[in-house]
């Protein structure tokens, strides 16, 4: 397909459908993440980058036989691999008998968080989550480094009358009503993660989506007055540092890295505090990285306009 816009839309639809699929498999947290990240923000960012390039793909001179071959082989291998898998939902599958039972049975006593997903994510395997946060931070660094904006362009943009949608009165009014609610919802997702589906990743993404919506409607320079790019750059780092800092504090208090038990006298309280803080760190990093990526793309668009 050479229409990239359609490709982006299809990938969004794909994410949405797989989110429904995850929901059907009772993986609510995964579905939520897939919907917000896969269908939501990544579609948005892809559209933003599409604005920089042409909508249609250049015609390739070769036929991607190799790629096709790779895909077919991979598919065949995957199907071959499923042949001996334990059937879905079997109670005695290794997945259900080895590690998982402890998570399900002990988590309430050890961590005291009703949502087991959160306790696995933020505590049992909290270090992985730190790594994931770092992955997002790395992606942000990549975009920041590659889409550097010169100081000149920044000054130029101050004079700029921003946003194509300035004239869209209906959109502006509706968005003005919605944006506070979106941000509220983000905070709800952030802090409700202990009890229901949610957590830093989804919350950060939703928060960023709200800000991005604002930027699209009211222009980059307006939103930059509140969310300065330089400040947000700092926030991308701050989230990781918060997460890691909690780990280091645990170490200083005598535990292992990320052993929240030592944060307070009562291990369960310590776990609560720890999870709260690291989820906050995740949320901060995710939100600010998403925003910075969008901002950088928009800067680029501005720059292109000026060149023309």
């Amino acid at each position, binding site marked *: 397909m050479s229409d990239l816009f359609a490709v982006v839309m299809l990938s969004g639809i794909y994410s949405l459908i797989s989110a429904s699929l995850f929901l059907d498999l009772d993986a609510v947290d995964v579905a939520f993440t897939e919907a917000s990240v896969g269908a939501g923000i990544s579609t948005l960012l892809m559209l933003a980058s599409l604005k920089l390039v042409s909508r249609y793909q250049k015609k390739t001179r070769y036929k991607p036989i190799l790629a096709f071959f790779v895909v077919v082989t991979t598919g065949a291998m995957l199907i071959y691999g499923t042949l001996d898998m334990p059937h879905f939902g079997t109670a005695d599958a290794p997945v259900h008998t080895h590690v998982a039972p402890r998570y399900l049975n002990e988590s309430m006593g050890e961590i005291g968080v009703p949502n087991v997903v959160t306790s696995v994510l933020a505590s049992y395997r909290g270090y992985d989550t730190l790594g994931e946060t770092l992955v997002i931070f790395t992606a942000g660094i990549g975009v920041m480094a590659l889409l550097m904006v010169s100081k000149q362009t920044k000054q130029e943009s101050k004079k700029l009358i921003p946003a194509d949608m300035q004239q*869209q009165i*209906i*959109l502006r009014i509706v*968005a003005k*009503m*919605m944006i506070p609610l979106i941000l509220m919802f983000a905070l709800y997702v952030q802090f409700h993660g202990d009890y229901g589906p949610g957590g830093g990743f989804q919350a950060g993404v939703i928060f960023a989506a709200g800000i991005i919506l604002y930027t699209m409607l009211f222009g980059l320079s307006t939103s930059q007055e509140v969310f300065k790019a330089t400040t947000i750059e700092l926030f991308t780092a701050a989230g990781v540092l918060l997460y890691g800092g909690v780990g280091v504090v645990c170490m200083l208090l005598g535990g292992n890295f990320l052993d929240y038990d030592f944060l307070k006298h009562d291990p369960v309280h310590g776990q609560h505090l720890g999870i709260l803080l690291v989820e906050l760190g995740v949320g901060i990093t995710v939100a600010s990285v998403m925003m910075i990526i969008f901002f950088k793309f928009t800067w680029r668009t501005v720059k292109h306009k000026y060149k023309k």
Partner: protein
Amino acid sequence: MELVLDIISWIFLVTGCFFCLTGAVGLLRFPDFFSRIHAASITDTLGAGLILIGLMFQSGGWGLVMPKLVLILLFSLLASTTASHAIAKAALKSGLKPEVSSADEPSEGESSSKL
């Protein structure tokens, strides 16, 4: 009482489903982009809205579910109408003219069907 609520709720649900169906048929069968988006927004507003109202009757009292459903209804009404508006406007801006009469410029109708 239960029965009454059930009947009312089912009426809403079925009508909602009907509108969803008509919306879908319209999306497929209508000739140009603007009439299609009309059909599509029916699915979003009337269809989904009626189903949500029907579900509210099913939710059984003023628990946690009811306000959630109300909120969803509110948001979907707000968001989908605005979205339809935005899409239509974007189409207009990018040069797509509504087909006023079927005799006019069939080529545009074709081009819109590609979207």
